[in-house]
């Protein structure tokens, strides 16, 4: 064999993706598979064929995600350990939250969500502090807070899932059914998207900006819980009792989260653009990545959001066809979902076909956030329709 041929052989072997996986990768995947198998064996009698498919697909997607984004392995293990711990502390009933120390202060769903809320707000402050102090260490602390907050958010939802079953076997449901629960989902998905791009673009400068919208969401859910008792677990209306909820709602929130992230990056864009025009850079504007990087990030985020939002809207239409007798009823929520979709479709057309960049696109991304917010919250608050599952 010639040198070229043997060198080629070596190279091909080297590049195999599976070769790059470590022992930890394989161990972690085994844990996920075992956990899924256990859940299947325990609960298969309660699941229909679609829910079983969703369970298996979630496991496969999680493993794929963890192999490509290594931090997910640690995140998922932390969530699993803490959630199982929290669930195990419920021995007699929901009243245990008053007497058990860990439930009361750490792992009951409401405690976990309070931790999530506090950590997100603190992370916002620390990210900005890192910019002003130009301190790498402070930035790392902020990232760590964001990871912790996201962990606690997921733990909160997982334990709440179990708590809903403790309320009653017929009351239990996945906690994405009302405005309170999805506000938590929005916070943690947006944070995850941010953390992904933080690693991808190797910058913490945008953390404060994105965490601002997450803090706003946290403020909302805290007000909603304390002022309107929204944290109470309510049973589902018959129309929501479907496997569709497990896929339509999370897909929607990947969309909303990505759109919100793009809008906050657009805010950073304007700050940097002004600094570049005046050629005077401060602590914040100096740390923000250059405009073309921000442009690219906005595009990637909106593209991701748009892809998932398309999926979510279609899933919503298919669900509506099964539950309400028609895939499209021009219901206010449906209509506003279409408007959000059209808005970002137009944005993407302008970028891809006409090559628009820069300030107009950044401004458009911010306007898009308002359209998205109206579709998410405004419709529930101001308009009525079949979709009012989360009224204020």
């Amino acid at each position, binding site marked *: 064999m010639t040198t070229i041929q043997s060198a080629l052989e070596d190279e091909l072997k080297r590049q195999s993706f599976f070769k790059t996986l470590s022992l930890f990768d394989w161990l972690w995947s085994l844990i996920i598979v075992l956990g899924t198998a256990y859940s299947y064996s325990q609960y298969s009698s309660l699941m229909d064929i679609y829910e079983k498919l969703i369970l298996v697909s979630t496991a496969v997607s999680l493993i794929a995600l963890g192999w490509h984004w290594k931090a997910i392995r640690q995140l998922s293990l932390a969530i699993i350990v803490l959630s199982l711990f929290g669930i195990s502390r419920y021995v007699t009933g929901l009243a245990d939250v008053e007497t058990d120390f860990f439930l009361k202060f750490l792992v009951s769903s409401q405690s976990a969500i309070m931790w999530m809320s506090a950590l997100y707000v603190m992370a916002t402050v620390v990210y900005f502090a890192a910019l002003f102090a130009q301190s790498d260490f402070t930035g790392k602390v902020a990232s760590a807070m964001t990871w912790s907050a996201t962990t606690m958010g997921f733990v909160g939802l997982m334990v709440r899932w179990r708590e809903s079953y403790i309320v009653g076997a017929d009351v239990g449901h996945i906690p994405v059914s009302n405005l309170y629960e999805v506000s938590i989902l929005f916070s943690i998905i947006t944070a995850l998207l941010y953390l992904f791009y933080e690693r991808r673009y190797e910058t913490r400068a945008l953390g404060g900006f994105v965490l601002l919208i997450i803090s706003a969401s946290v403020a909302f859910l805290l007000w909603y819980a304390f002022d309107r008792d929204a944290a109470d677990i309510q049973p589902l209306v*018959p129309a929501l009792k479907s496997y569709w909820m497990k896929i339509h709602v999370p897909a929607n929130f990947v969309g909303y989260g990505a759109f919100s992230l793009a809008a906050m990056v657009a805010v950073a864009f304007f700050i940097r653009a002004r600094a570049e025009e005046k050629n005077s850079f401060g602590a914040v504007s100096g740390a923000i990545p250059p405009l073309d990087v921000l442009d690219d990030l906005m595009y990637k985020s909106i593209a*991701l959001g748009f*892809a998932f939002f398309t999926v979510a809207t279609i899933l919503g239409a298919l669900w509506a066809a099964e539950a309400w*007798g028609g895939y499209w009823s021009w219901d206010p929520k449906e209509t506003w979902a279409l408007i959000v979709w059209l808005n970002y479709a137009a944005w993407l057309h302008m970028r891809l076909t006409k090559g628009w960049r820069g300030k107009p696109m950044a401004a458009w991304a911010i306007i898009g956030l308002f359209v998205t917010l109206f579709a998410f919250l405004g419709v529930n608050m101001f308009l009525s329709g079949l979709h009012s599952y989360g009224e204020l």
Partner: protein
Amino acid sequence: MKNSTSNQLASRRSLASVLLTFLGSMNLAITLLLAVSIAAVIGTVLQQNQPYADYIIKFGPFWFEVFNTLGLYDVYSTVWFLLILVFLVLSTTVCIYRNAPIMIREMTNYGENIQLETLKSSALSTQWTISSNADDLVHAATKLLKHNGFSARLSETKERSLVSGMKGAGSRLGYIFTHVAIVLICIGGLIDGNAALKFREMAGLLIPETQNIPANEIPEISRLGVATPAFRGNVSIPEGGQANVLFINYKDGYLVQNLPFSVELKDFRIEHYESGMPKSFESDLLIHDKRLAKPLEQTISVNHPLIYDGYSIYQASFNDGGSLIEFTSWPFSDVAADKGVINTAVGKNSAFTANDKNWILEVSDFRLFNINPSAIEGKKYENVGPSVQFKVRSNTGEAKEYLNYMLPMQREDAYFYLTGVRSSPAEEFHYFHIPVDDAGGIDRFMRFQKKLGEEAYLRDLAQNKLDPSLSLPSKESAQIVDAMVRLAMIFKSNGFEGVVSEVEANVPEDKREEVTAVYVRVLQQILGEVYVDLLVEEGVDISEGIDPLKTAFFDDATAAISAIGRYGSPLYFQLKDFEHRQASGLQITKSPGKNLVYPGCTLLILGVFLMFYAPQRRLWVFVQKAEKGAEIVLSGTAVRNNADFIKEYEIIRDQFNRVFKG
């Protein structure tokens, strides 16, 4: 002559191509998307398809007409909205027509004619000179490209070998998919929408029915035959009943849609949560169709419809299916009447006479249970029992609505029968509390208030029972007796307000307070005496006085009686007995357009992901024989995501480096 003809041909051709360019232009597409968005928003802020009366009240006659002409009450079916959608379809189709050939060409073209100079001068370009067999190098290059996910094609001439690689042809396909999907979805949606109904209405072939009349009385012009291609409507079937029509909400009224089969409801079941909220409900249906050997049986529930013959039958809601109601009617203001029995049903109207006038009793709803938050410790909810809702309409057409509970409810330490009244659906119910007597019924109360309307009885009582001295005929005694009787009767018909009005009408202002006090005392005396007389009639021993329970009853009864003037209905309808019948609310749809929409949706999802995540990239490896081996040039371009491609190029270049350097 020839010139003018060819000029004409030239201008005609350019008109077509101008039109095509306009229709396929991005600007038009974006404008149309914007127009759809704005029109769609209007439909969300202005509640659609409400009765026209509501709009007139809301906007006033002028703006009502303006909005009506613009079609804003049914925005998504207006001609102009449909036109925007049609233009969108045309624009997208032209886009596909013009760009698909280019896309397909891009997908299949590997750029095998590219020149060495172009590759060398490209932004991403690397060169090597290797003393190795050219064939080995070509083989290695092909394998490496493939390993990185590129598809590679080899083209060889005497002078050189060129490996052309391409990745992400999918994104071109994605473009075609997404745009075809939009066309499919829009066409499917238009088929399933009520555009067809709209055109028939515009042609004068269809008029919606606006009144609530039985299905078989609805005229032909509001009916649709079984050949209607697409519709969505509702029908409510009581248990044991059948229906072969459904009702389509259309504009400010509805249309009747005939079905080629009939749907029978064998059984309806509903389960509730502790809080009274519905948990799940389902219907056992039987489809009777001449074309079937035997009827089709299936149970449907929310999220689990029945699909038959292209029709989809959904469990949408439930309501009362005509429960049988037995009322005991107690006269309030008509003293001549006795208590009676009325047998009716939910949805039925019964006529009755009272006070020499004709009235109509319209029973609208019956609820088997009412769950309220419980005041009792430890219990979260309590069931206060059945209730019935009905309207009582006078011969002038005015009506008040009532909500009567079958069982008494506890308020503080006593029990009451609650009867709610309201004058319009927008109001809350105001409740009258009828106190319950020792026997657990309302006999005593009814006798009490009846007696207060009997003039002869009151006169007799006032004269004999109140003050022996009054039985002496004298002008003053007569006046006092008159006053007592009059006050009692005013109180019964108009309550304390009646007494106050009486004072204001007949007494000068400075004496009013004094006289009112006197009147109230007198009234209390006569009321008390009537009550005592009542108790004696019952057989109660009052020699030791009246116990607190009966005193409390007196207070509650007078409070209730003082309000009877505002009750409205001449009779109190006590819910005595019932037979509960349920009806299942079904939604039936026919949507052939979904055969276009669903594939369109699949294409859309595939296309979107392909376009974003499979962007097209090209790599070339140019191998040319040199003196001591071969000269190799590696070069690449990407249409989009250039920053990402640069990183990818560098990785591949490093791979080539390692292989070539050995």
